[in-house]
């Protein structure tokens, strides 16, 4: 199985054969990859022993290793083709969801507003703190389903932002 994995804008060709043997950019690697518990893995590769937390969300595989986060995209051949046809890799979603149950304190944007990535679109109170939820992308506010004073559950969709037309 061939994959192209992207990290920090760089592409790595990773091939995994049926016996589990691995090559990275054509070079063989000796890898012992083991699940320790849900999301927790141990790798011993060329005797280096590392513990990793791995999770995925929206097509991104996040690897946390020695206190550092590596965000990767793993594409098989079909996904790679589709991405290339789309003209780019890894456009992220503009959905803003409640990361936890809480009380909406303020929604400082309206439908149609242009917002920048990182701009606060909802203020959510939870765990005695006011948390500012930010837009994940540059774009335009498409829908606002949250309103101040409303109690929301985890993962409730609050605001959606769509990328600007190009």
């Amino acid at each position, binding site marked *: *199985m061939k*994959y192209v*994995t992207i*990290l*920090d804008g*760089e592409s*790595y060709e*990773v091939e*995994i054969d049926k016996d589990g043997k*691995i090559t*990275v950019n054509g070079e063989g*690697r000796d*890898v012992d*990859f083991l699940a*320790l*518990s*849900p*999301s*927790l*893995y141990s*790798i011993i*590769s060329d005797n*280096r022993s*590392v*513990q*990793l*937390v*791995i999770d*995925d969300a929206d097509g991104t*595989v996040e*690897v*946390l*290793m*020695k*206190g*550092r*986060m*590596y965000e*990767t995209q*793993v594409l*098989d051949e079909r996904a790679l083709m589709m991405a290339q046809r789309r003209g780019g890799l890894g456009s992220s979603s503009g959905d803003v969801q409640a*990361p*936890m*149950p*809480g009380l909406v*304190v303020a929604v400082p944007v309206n439908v149609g507003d242009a917002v920048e990535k990182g701009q606060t679109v909802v203020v959510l*109170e*939870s*765990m*005695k*703190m*006011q*948390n*500012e939820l*930010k837009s994940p992308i540059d774009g335009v506010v498409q829908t606002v389903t949250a309103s101040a004073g409303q109690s929301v559950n*985890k993962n409730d969709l609050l605001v959606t932002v769509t990328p600007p037309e190009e």
Partner: protein
Amino acid sequence: MPDTVRINKLLIANRGEIAVRVLRACRDLGIPTVAVYSDADRKALHVRYADEAVYIGGSRPAESYLRKDVIIQAAKQTGADAIHPGYGFLAENADFAQQVIDEGLVWVGPSPRAIAVMGDKQQARTAVTANGVPLIPGTPAGLLDDDLIAAAYEIGFPVLIKAVAGGGGKGMRAVHDPKDFAESLATARREAESAFGNGDVYVEKLLVGARHIEFQILADMHGNTIHLGERECSIQRRHQKLVEEAPSPFVDDELRRKMGEMAIAAARSVDYVNAGTIECMVDKDKNYYFLEMNTRLQVEHPVTELVTGVDIVKEQIRIARGRPMTPQENVMKPRGWAIECRINAEDPYANFMPSTGKINTMITPSGPGVRVDSGVYAGSEITPYYDSMIAKLITWGETRSEAMLRMRRALAEYTIMGLKHNIPFHINLMNSFSFIAGQVDTNFVETRFSMDTYEDPPTSQDLETAVIAATLYAHRKRQLASQVVGPRQRDASNWKWISRWERMRK
């Protein structure tokens, strides 16, 4: 001379790690314990570790941990003759302290009057000023918005807006530019109203590049008031402490002597008895200002315990019994160095957003020089009802560098899965040159630290390992998905499925 009283059973009016901490002290003293718990906390560690546990209501604090009458009733019902409030909740509630005392129970804490005076920022300022304690220039409480903005101009920007009833960074906002003042004021009032039911705020001068340094005070009923040295608490984010150490890398013997005397004078200004903390700001030129007194056990008390050998909770109980406290002299020479990292259920990669969920895997670090004060375990649930601190990791070393190396080691060992937490933040902080050099101020985390940049960038080997791991993860997930049989195939062999399901149940 006070009478010595016996404590036959002690109720802890709190939850989480601090309830466990107080339980442990009672166990070490041989005093039976009573825990109280809300709906959300039936399985909590403090309930498991206590000798008795009384259910006191719903999950929201107002329905349980803040219910004074119900908690006092729980003490009466179980025969507890003393109450330790921990920190937060009712710990700095003078009415509650008074009620406990009126019911003939021992209150493990300072007098209601001391709590009331120090709990009101303005009264506190008046009290300590009388004893010659230096203050940061600021306004009184109770001013209207227009008066506050005028005062802010007079003091000179930057300024800090602070809740009168505040604590823990809630209802607090720094304002650098006059044009942001109105909005920040509104936010601060809103937060203060929501957190303390009191939206009153005041304004004071914001010291730039200043450190947060505090002194631990112990005072008994026999007229002894001492300090146990200082703690450096400048590693903060949004005025919430994240890392504390003792001693402070900034404090020399002379400054310790002078600030220690000031701290004792501040405590004496309200005839303080029991454990308390004098919080100060210290600028680059070693000018120091009294901020406030916390009239309770402090979250970060363990770093002081490790460098002084004093068990502060045991001393609190001893003092509450009317006995002379064990240490009798100011601690001018701390032994070694201690660092504490607060482990919070907050995602450092998502603006420190609080995270909830069930801990499914936990490996707690241990070994030489490591202490963990925690209220959670694998299987316990982090709910949105309480604050996000789930544990405190504390290391000790002969020197600051040994304590830091041990902290790095302990952080690397600490495995908590099932929710997001800030251990990666601490790992990166311990690698930051500024922190290593002790060159920090209260704005360091917000202005000079980032989770995205590393002073020591990842090696190509690290990058490759991350790529391999991510790819293998995705590969396995894909293979697993392809093994999920479609509905048509399932009907063929019902029995196989059943036996498989039964195996799963075991």
